[in-house]
Each structure stands twice: as structure tokens, then as C-alpha cells.
């Protein structure tokens, strides 16, 4: 079965409650702060920001419980912040400062906290999440395992092995695909034959296409899918057509100016600012200032410590 939710015209976003808007802006300013610090040479290593895609974990947030497992990927800052609202711990992790969620060992793309896990190898988490879902199905029915993945991840065989077992065994596994049309530098039409819908359908798995980028509409589209996964204990694929507003990593955007302009035209940030200027300005300024304070405070912390007893 495939359901499509196309949503309202992109220039009329739904007015959001304060907590949703704050979370969207928290993620936006976290990512902007990271790029800013990279630009100044203050960060070591690499990062992948989710600029333009912040609404995905924000839409999911009230639909998930603490008992659900969330598996994230290389582009996971938004997923983490939506779950824990902990910019200090995440920034300390990226910077290798005390208070880091994983003592600076995992960095931007390897984080484990409670039932949240991210790792940096594409597709690897799908069978792992199926294993978690196998346990949930027996021990904690009603909970689910959610995997965030991109359109590029569908090139990995692990996705199909995991989806096959989840469908065969009736497991509460939800794949949330952030289809931003580009895998690092490779456009989707150069790396994905057929469609994600066709691939889900081949396993007898429900597929829902969501083209809206409006947090409220996306949430409304996702709610019945999560409910079905929980109640009927079977996997589902949700494909969100989204727009990567920033580079893949930092300063490595290979798209044409027109393509980048197209992504920016779909950015929820500018559209929301235009539709609700007063509400937006107040929240935006508050989160910008909050992140500046987080950066100042975390940057002043001493280096993180990896104790011998924590080395596996």
C-alpha cells in the first residue's frame, strides 16, 4: 500500500506551537554554529548538518516514547536534539570537551544514549534495528524501532536483508527515509533505479510518501503510520521528500546554483519567517542567543577524558 501526503502550498506553513518552533530553531542554530566554528578552524574532523531537514525529527518527537529505539546516521544532530534537547552534551561530543555524551570517542556520528544510537556506516543499522524490534515485539509490545536513513542508503544490501526479516517475522520496524535528492554529490537519479516505493512494495511493506515540509502536516501524515507499526507489529517505510539546504559535509556542495536555490526555496525557515514574522523573530533570536551561549560555555570546558575502564 502506498499513501501520499502532499500537503498545503509551500508558502502557507501551519502556525506552530512554541515548543515545536523552539526545537526547529534549536537544531537550525546548532548546525549553523557548527559550520561557523568549522569556518573559523575551531572544530576538528568533520560533520554533516541537517539544514533544511530539521522538521523530520521535530514532527516525529511527540509520536515517539522513551521505550522506542531510534537509530540515527551520519546526519543525526537533529535526531539527537529532538530526543534529548541537549545541545551541551552534543556540542561537547563534537568538540571533545567534558560533558560529552560519549566522552568524545564517538564524535558527531557515533552516539549512544539510552535507546538512541547512531553510527557512521550506511544501512548497517537496519538489521540491528530488526534485532531490537524482534526483542521489543516479544518483551515490550507496542514499542518500535525507528531507523533514519537517506535515499543514498538504499544502495546498501543490509537495508534489504533487514527489511526482509522484519517483514517475514512481523517486526515493529519503521524506516524513515529523508530523501533529499542527493547522496553526497550524486543525484538520486544517478544512484537509485526504480523507486523506494517499489522496493518497499517488493517486500509487501507499506510505503507512505510525504512531500510536505510543514512540521504539522508531516506529523499528521506520520501518526497513523507509527500507530499501525505499533498495533499491527509490522514494518513500514516512510519516504519524506526533503531538501538539503546545506552542503553534504562542510563546503563540499557540488550542486549548481539553481539546484541550491531550489532547495533553499523549500526551506521551512525562510517561509516560516515570512508567514509569522513576529512569532518567528522572537523565537529565532532567543535560540540564536541560547546557542551562542552554549558554544561559549562548552568551548571553555576542559578536554574530555576517556577512562581506561571505559575502553571496552
Amino acid at each position: 500500500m502506498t499513501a501520499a501526503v502532499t500537503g498545503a502550498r509551500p508558502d502557507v506553513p501551519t502556525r506552530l506551537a512554541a515548543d515545536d518552533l523552539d526545537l526547529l530553531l534549536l537544531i537550525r542554530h546548532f548546525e549553523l554554529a557548527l559550520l561557523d566554528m568549522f569556518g573559523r578552524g575551531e572544530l576538528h574532523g568533520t560533520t554533516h548538518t541537517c539544514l533544511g531537514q530539521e522538521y523530520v525529527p521535530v514532527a516525529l518527537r511527540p509520536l515517539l516514547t522513551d521505550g522506542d529505539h531510534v537509530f540515527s546516521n551520519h546526519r543525526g544532530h537533529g535526531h539527537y536534539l529532538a530526543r534529548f534537547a541537549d545541545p551541551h552534551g552534543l556540542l561537547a561530543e563534537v568538540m571533545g570537551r567534558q560533558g560529552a555524551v560519549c566522552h568524545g570517542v564517538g564524535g558527531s556520528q557515533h552516539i549512544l544514549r539510552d535507546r538512541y544510537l547512531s553510527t557512521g556506516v550506511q544501512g548497517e543499522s537496519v538489521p540491528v534495528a530488526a534485532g531490537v524490534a524482534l526483542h521489543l515485539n516479544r518483551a515490550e509490545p507496542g514499542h518500535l524501532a525507528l531507523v533514519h536513513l537517506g535515499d543514498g542508503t538504499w544502495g546498501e544490501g543490509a537495508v534489504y536483508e533487514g527489511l526482509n526479516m522484519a517483514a517475514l517475522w512481523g517486526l515493529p520496524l519503521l524506516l524513515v527515509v529523508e530523501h533529499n535528492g542527493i547522496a553526497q554529490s550524486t543525484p538520486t537519479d544517478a544512484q537509485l533505479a526504480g523507486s523506494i516505493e517499489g522496493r518497499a512494495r517488493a517486500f509487501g511493506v507499506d510505503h507512505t510518501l510525504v512531500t510536505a515540509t510543514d512540521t504539522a502536516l508531516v506529523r499528521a501524515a506520520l501518526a497513523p503510520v507509527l500507530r499501525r507499526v505499533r498495533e499491527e507489529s509490522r514494518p513500514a517505510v516512510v519516504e519524506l521528500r526533503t531538501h538539503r539546504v546545506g552542503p553534504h559535509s562542510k563546503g563540499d556542495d557540488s550542486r549548481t546554483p539553481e539546484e541550491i536555490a531550489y532547495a533553499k526555496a523549500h526551506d521551512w525557515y525562510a517561509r516560516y519567517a515570512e508567514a509569522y514574522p513576529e512569532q518567528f523573530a522572537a523565537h529565532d533570536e532567543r535560540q540564536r542567543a541560547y546557542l551562542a551561549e552554549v558554544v561559549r560555555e562548552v568551548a571553555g570546558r576542559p578536554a574530555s577524558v576517556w577512562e581506561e575502564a571505559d575502553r571496552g
Partner: protein
Amino acid sequence: MAERVVENLNQALHALLADDPRLYLLGEDLADPYGGAFKVTRGLSSRWPDRVLSTPLSEGGIVGVAGGLALAGQRAIVEIMFSDFVALAFDQILNFASKSTAMYGRRVPMPLVVRCPTGGNRGYGPTHSQSPQKHFVGIPGLDLYEVSPFHDNQTVLGGMLATGRPGLLFEDKVLYTGRMYADGVVDELFRYDLLDGDVARIWVDDPEQSDCVLVVPGGLAVRAVAVARELLLRDDIVCQVLVPSRLWPLHAAALLPAVARAGRLVVAEESTTGGTWGAELAHAVHTALWGTLRAPVRLVHSADSVIPTAAHLERTVLVQNTDIHRAVKEVVRGA
């Protein structure tokens, strides 16, 4: 007469599943009445249909599912039908299960064992006969063990799961049909005991005396004992055989005293040459005992070749008892 190795493994799995309701067993064609390609899992799915699962042909996926179970506080044993196919699960082993024990900045238990029927001498050809142990040596967070006729498998598997570290258990396919040794007796000449509960020591007359030490993984244990017997009867050479259950990390502390006393060490394994477990062991022994050794450590392994199918060709590649015999004799007598 002692039970066969395959029966010991089967009983070990029965006992572990009975003792621990968190334990799962996953693999291809495990379920009854088939009971696994080598019948190691016979009877298990009938007793625990919810926890003994036949899976699709998805080695990477299966090990991933096992990793997910471990992450969720369960335990898992995976059977890979032929250890050659563990290559398909390399990412889950290298990048997920073993790394997850440490890469999140704290110790995360990953109680997970991947069982790998291993080795040649059955005419199964190039993709069903390999000894892939060497490809997994030196992966942080990953332990390697090998089944032997001296080590009870319930103890070995239970111990592996109890470490909270993922591990691979290599199981020589010819050994399955052989018998376990019991009560410290190998035959009318040889006796054995366990050092540190891990290294089986097989000796004649005096465990503290030998002309040469021969270290082998469990899959070569029966062959090594046969060689030691021939060396004694034909060449009057006293060779002590050591068989560690855990291959990696190296159990050097338990191996070094005997090697130091003899001053001579031969390491034999079925892996093809190059980047082998034996080379790591030789390095450790050379470093620790350089001033004590009477000869360089000698490595014996299979040839640098794919493993052919026809029996007469397979013999030209796989390590033979005569190779081990000759190596020990040369190290003791001087080549």
C-alpha cells in the same frame, strides 16, 4: 567412549538455551528436522521455537539482528553455515558489534557469538573450505576461539557470552565427527590438562619436559597429537602440544613457560600463508623469549593458494601431518 564433538556442541547449546531465557540462536537451516548443515543444532528449534530461528540467506543481516538483540539486553549465537560466508558479515562484526563495545566512550556489553564451521579436507572446494581466522586477528573488541576435543563447549560458549565481548568460534568440520577427550587421558602414552582453564597441554611422561613445543588451534589438535606420537615413536623426539581455546587475544602468559623450557616452538595452522595467527604468536614469543630460544619459531601453514576440490589436489595445498612432523624434526635436529 566419550561423546563426539558435534554432540558436545549440541548439548552445550541445549544447556545454554535452557539456562538463559535471554539467549537466541540464529542461522540458516537451523530448524528441525534439518537441524543445521552439520547437525549441530538438532533438536533445538523443537524445544525453543521462539528463540531458535532459521533465517533467510543473509549473513550480514543475521549478525546485525544478533547485534540488535545484544544491544537490547539479550544474548545471541549465530551459526554461519560455512565460515567462508562470514565474509558477508564482516561489516557487522568489524564496524558494529566489536566497535560498539567501546566507541560510545563506555563499555557496552555485546554478548554475541558467531559460530563458524571451518576448514578443508572434505572436498568442498575453494569457497567452502577456508580457514578465515587470520582475517579477524587484531580487531579491537573481538575475541576469537576455536573448538577443540579438549575443551567442553558449554564452558567455552558460556565463557564467551559472559565476557560481554563479541566473539567468533571456529569449528573444524572434520573434528565434528571425532570424539572429545576426557579425564586427562589422550591415549596410552599421552596425558593432558588445562592451563589457566584455557590452554590444553598434551604431554608424555613429564609435563615440564619436552624437546619442542607445538602450538595449534583446536582444529589441528587431533592431527598434532598424531604427529607428536609419531615423533616420539619414530624419532625419539618429545613434543609437547599446546592447544589454546582462545586464539585472540593471544594467551601468551599460559604458553610462554613451556616454550621457554623447551627453547623451541612450532606453530601449525590450516590458514593459508600470510598475515597468520601463527605469525602474531611467533612475534610475541620472539619478543618475550629472544635470549632463551634455541631456534627461531617455525610456522607451518597451508600453501599460498585457493583450496582445490579434488582430494589429490586439496592435499597439495592444505597443511599435512608430514609438514608438521618435518618442521618439528628440523627445529629439534637442525635443518
